[in-house]
């Protein structure tokens, strides 16, 4: 019985309230992160100035602490359903949680010098970062409309503030405001859709909704279409799918670059996780509605994202548009969700993880190089291979991975999507595959353009011969991303073994 139904039942019968039994082991990562938020706030209010230097360290220790229960849970195996199936902890959620935590770990590494040298508020920064992470971790397990919505707000609201962290800069304020307004609007749309879904399904649990949708008559019920479309569009804003992407480039450019990294990697992934839960656990019986809808979103995102990226002169903006294009690739498996749900879901998750690794790396390199060039404008990166050969070649590797060159991770991500959409043997699937292939070639152009500028072009007059040393935290971030990018490319089994773990009971 769902929570709502329980409450309704209790109004009639005045029995004493019995709380649900809680599996504390399954909730341990969330508990550790919540504790971390509290500790960070307390540390700041007690020690104030003196605590500033320790904030990143404390944050990262907490993140590593949260990874421990994930490992023990993974070791235990099996799927644990909490709160009547509204909250599920299994192999797939565990891997997604690990991805969110490791991503945030790298983002903290990226932020350490950026925040300290830029003289921004530090303590609050890390507190908000961990709060947002908590929302993502909750999202990975939520199998309930309310859970998903709460998680979404928990991860979004801190992100609105983080986007405008460079308070002195108008563009950062603009970034935060745009992101906030768009986000709130999307939430409203989403809530409206969810209320319709609840009205149809009579339950907030995805499993129940799926069952009702499967039994419902398919003809003459336009409200089903309306409900599903609204929910999907709500998240289309979050994952910056065309035509709901307009906030992304401005927000990405204006926000502090580590925050941009966080938004582009973790926040977007969280949006996808929500879409995965909703589509594969609830909406699947109405594949006839969602498949064409996702076809439009996917094709539009990859094509518009790529074409717009071609014209960018700022690397961060370019990465923002390329992120839209990648979102299109990640949406593509939804186009064939009805044909092979498990494989589609798997390919999206694999893409999310690999994209996180390579995109983190690319952003890390941009941040490291911008320490010398003082900007992320493409023209300022001309010839950086002379002064920063290591960084430049690492960036080339990440760009190559984003293009999809083997043996770097990106190829497998793309390949997995190709395999799923072609394997469905549907007209929409084949059309998606062909358009993806063409987009791959378009994307290569602007990624290579960055490589070309860094490697082939001559540095501007008066450029320093030797760049300042890259701080160890940045170097560590790049190293982590690079190792992950190579490992996923050469041995994709590392990922696929986890994602194909056990029969993930669909629709339940």
């Amino acid at each position: 019985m769902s929570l709502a139904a329980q409450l309704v039942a209790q109004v009639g019968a005045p029995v004493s309230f019995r709380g649900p039994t809680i599996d504390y082991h399954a909730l341990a990562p969330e508990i550790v992160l919540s504790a971390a938020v509290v500790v960070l706030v307390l540390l700041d209010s007690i020690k104030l100035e003196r605590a500033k230097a320790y904030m990143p360290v404390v944050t990262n220790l907490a993140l590593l602490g949260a990874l421990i229960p994930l490992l023990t849970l993974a070791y235990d195996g099996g799927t644990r359903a909490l709160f009547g199936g509204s909250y599920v902890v299994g192999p797939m959620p565990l891997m997604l949680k690990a991805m969110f935590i490791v991503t945030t770990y790298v983002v903290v590494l990226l932020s350490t010098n950026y925040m300290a040298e830029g003289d921004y508020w530090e303590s609050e920064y890390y507190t908000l970062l961990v709060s947002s992470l908590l929302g993502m971790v909750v999202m990975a397990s939520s199998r309930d409309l309310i859970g998903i919505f709460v998680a979404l707000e928990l991860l979004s609201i801190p992100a609105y503030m983080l986007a405008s962290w460079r308070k002195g800069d108008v563009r950062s304020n603009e970034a935060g405001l745009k992101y906030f307004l768009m986000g709130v609007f999307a939430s409203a749309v989403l809530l409206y859709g969810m209320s319709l879904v609840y009205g149809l399904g009579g339950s907030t649990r995805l499993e129940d909704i799926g069952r009702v949708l499967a039994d419902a008559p398919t003809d003459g019920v336009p409200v089903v279409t309306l409900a599903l479309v609204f929910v999907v569009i709500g998240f289309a804003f979050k994952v910056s799918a065309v035509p709901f992407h307009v906030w992304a480039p401005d927000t990405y450019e204006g926000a502090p670059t580590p925050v941009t990294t966080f938004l582009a990697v973790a926040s977007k992934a969280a949006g996808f996780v929500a879409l995965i839960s909703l589509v594969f656990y609830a909406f699947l019986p109405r594949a006839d509605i969602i498949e064409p809808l996702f076809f439009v979103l996917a094709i539009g995102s990859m094509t518009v994202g790529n074409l717009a990226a071609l014209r960018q002169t700022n690397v961060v903006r370019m990465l923002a548009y390329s992120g839209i294009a990648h979102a299109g690739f990640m949406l593509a498996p939804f186009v064939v969700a009805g044909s092979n749900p498990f494989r589609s879901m798997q390919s999206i998750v694999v893409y999310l993880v690999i994209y996180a690794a390579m995109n983190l790396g690319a952003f890390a390199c941009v941040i490291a190089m911008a320490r010398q060039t003082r900007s992320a404008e493409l023209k300022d990166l001309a010839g950086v291979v002379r002064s920063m050969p290591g960084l430049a070649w690492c960036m080339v590797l990440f760009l190559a991975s984003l293009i999809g060159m083997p043996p770097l991770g990106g190829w497998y991500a793309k390949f997995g999507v190709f395999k799923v959409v072609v394997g469905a043997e549907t007209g929409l699937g084949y059309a998606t595959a062909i358009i993806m292939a063409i987009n791959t070639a378009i994307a290569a152009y602007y990624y290579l353009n960055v490589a070309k500028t860094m490697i082939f072009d001559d540095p501007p007059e008066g450029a320093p011969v030797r760049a300042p040393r890259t701080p160890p935290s940045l170097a560590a971030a790049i190293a982590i991303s690079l190792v992950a990018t190579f490992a996923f490319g050469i041995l994709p089994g590392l990922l696929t073994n986890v994602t194909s773990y056990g029969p993930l009971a669909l629709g339940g």
Partner: protein
Amino acid sequence: MKQFLNDWGLILVTFLPMVGVLAMLCVPRESEETHKLLAVITSLATAFVGILLMLNFNYDRAGILQFRVDHSWIDAINSRFIMGLDGLSLPLLALTLLIMPLVFIYSWNHIPEPGNVKAFFVLMLVLEMGMIGTFLAEDLILFFVFFEIVLLPMYFLIGVWGGPERKYASIKFFIYTLLGSALMLVAFVAVYFLVKNPVTGEAIQTFSIPELKAAGGEGITRAAQVVIFGGMFMGFGIKVPMFPFHTWLPDAHTQAPTQGSVILAAVLLKLGTYGFMRIAIPILPDGARQWAPVIGVLAVIGIIYGALCCLAQTDMKRLIAFSSVSHMGFTMLAISTLTTFGFNAAVFGMVAHGLITGMLFFIAGSMKDRYHTLEIKRLGGLLVSAPKLGWIFGLCTMASLGLPGLAGFWGEFPAILSAYAPAEGLNITLFRGLMIAAALGTVLAAGYLLWLYQRTAFGTPTEEFADDPHIHDVTTPEWISWTPLLVLIVLLGFVPAIIFNVTEPAVNIIAKTVGG
């Protein structure tokens, strides 16, 4: 020994270059001599393993895969790490293993601007690994991975060490090839899902090339085969390159540094033709039969068009590049006949073109070092100012135009002849017409090559270069790197059976699958 090679030989020969790369990454970039030494040693060690493989190769059973390794790799997609060596891949492996050390030796005193030996050699070693892996891979995904690995090093070789238009040429090369290979990947995946086991009628869902070959396109309708073959055609045809997808080649060749041009001409282009024979034709025989006339016509257009373009060139390197388009046209014409005879001619043509055009690019590079220009009308009198270089150049032009007794003849003549009797079911009238047109192409080839040779080698040196002290004769590194190629050009010209005997059993099987 034999056992060791069976288990590890192919893995070793593929990944030895990477060992060299790792060693070089540990050496600081200032110690250039060490880098040169390491690269030469690595490529020679790789070649040594290759020689061991060739010595232990069972030539009586060249039709079957030998030294086969088969390990699990990506279970989730049923892709396995399968490698094997047979009569089709052996000549191309040998060609790669021969060319690479020679290129490194040639580079000893020919490092193109702007220097940076370390990066230059590291990229070439990565390139070597990619090329060897492509020729040995027996799994579609593994093949694709190696096929793609080749792209990036070549992009940087052209883009960093190339000529004035290098940026344009390198990006054009990259985008063209990437578009082709993306469509090729879609085709591979389609094959994976559609091919059925001929006996049980169930989808076999494998990327293993031998298994797919055995299935012979079972379960895919003719129309679907035509479409899927089209995807592969884009991937391989762009690489060859076939008319009308050839436009990246002249730019890439002209702008690439000498070493890049040599590798491009000698090995990289063969990845495309090899792909047709190894993958596209045996896996999709029905599709191949439908596409054969199209390929044949495009090949002959390539022959004629390439030759005509050669006649119009003013730059020596660009001329040689267009001659590649023309020569690869002969190879593709031979492949399009779908017969044992044609396939044999194609493999021979690939090796011969690799040796001869590789050599021509070496010469062009050396002349560029001496004259600092390759504009044909400014050159002249090479036989006077550098007689040995002039004679070598003469030998190579003769070989390239297909003079009997040199390797080029056996690539060209059987290719034309094969079109006389194409496989059953193909339009004989059309192919005989193509044969005549291709034969005319050889006349044009003789025309542009002799004209090139006359204008550059005969006569007296132009005033500009009459007493230029830079114009010296062949140097020692040049001798070392060129002699093996020249010897092979002559040797294969007299004893073509060296290659035909190896390829015959392997291509025979392919021809049987398409019923030719």
